[in-house]
């Protein structure tokens, strides 16, 4: 299973709509870095509105992909994290401290636009 990555001007948009297993998460990490490399995208929004569960493995993959993209020069914002998912992550002890987030896709794009000033 592959998660589709859409290009919109200088940005990449991803909406995760399926149950993510470990392989899909790792594959997505590689696909996103490749896509950043090929398109020269400067900003990425990963929308998690439809994601019902983030366990420690998926959290690690998401946190890593933010850091990896940052190393390449692209800024990633995670959007739409559900209340139940936020509660569970903190109970689990996963704080995703340095990860930029926004309430929804629209605010995520505004955040990128403001920070990248394009």
């Amino acid at each position, binding site marked *: 299973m592959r998660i589709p990555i859409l290009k919109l001007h200088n940005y990449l948009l991803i909406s995760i709509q399926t149950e993510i297993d470990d392989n899909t998460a790792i594959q997505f990490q590689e696909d996103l870095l490749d896509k950043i490399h090929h398109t020269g995208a400067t900003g990425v929004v990963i929308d998690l509105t439809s994601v019902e569960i983030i366990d*420690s493995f998926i959290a690690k993959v998401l946190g890593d992909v933010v850091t990896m993209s940052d190393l390449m020069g692209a800024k990633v914002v995670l959007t739409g994290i559900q209340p*139940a998912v936020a509660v569970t992550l903190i*109970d689990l002890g996963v704080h995703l401290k340095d990860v930029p987030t926004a309430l929804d896709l629209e605010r995520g794009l505004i955040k990128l636009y403001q920070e990248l000033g394009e």
Partner: protein
Amino acid sequence: MDLQSCVTIEKEWDIVKARQLGRDIAREIGFGTVDQARIATAISELARNIYLYADNGQVCFEVADELDQKGIAVISLDTGPGIQNISQVMEDGYSTSGGLGAGLPGVKRLFDQFDIQSEEGKGTEIRVMKWLR
């Protein structure tokens, strides 16, 4: 206790199967969305431990329906190498797999009761319980 159902963990996708079944059972018992997420996430951690450290094992669910309380028990059973030092794996941030080390201490926080038994060379049994409030 009644209605026990189990998912055998052999392949990576079985982790997803276990947490989906656990979430369905939790929803039927009447748990809200936050507790459903807690239960499904903890199952995911337990099932992944089986997948990573023991070649195979099972995650089982029991519905507890007592006089004044309903709840779900999740039992993780494997015939893997066992855990040498249980207090160490219960520390936040301890990991031998390069993960976040949130697994078992996280599972303990997500449930109301947590019991672990492990014997080197024989396997590990973890039993957790969450009550409907």
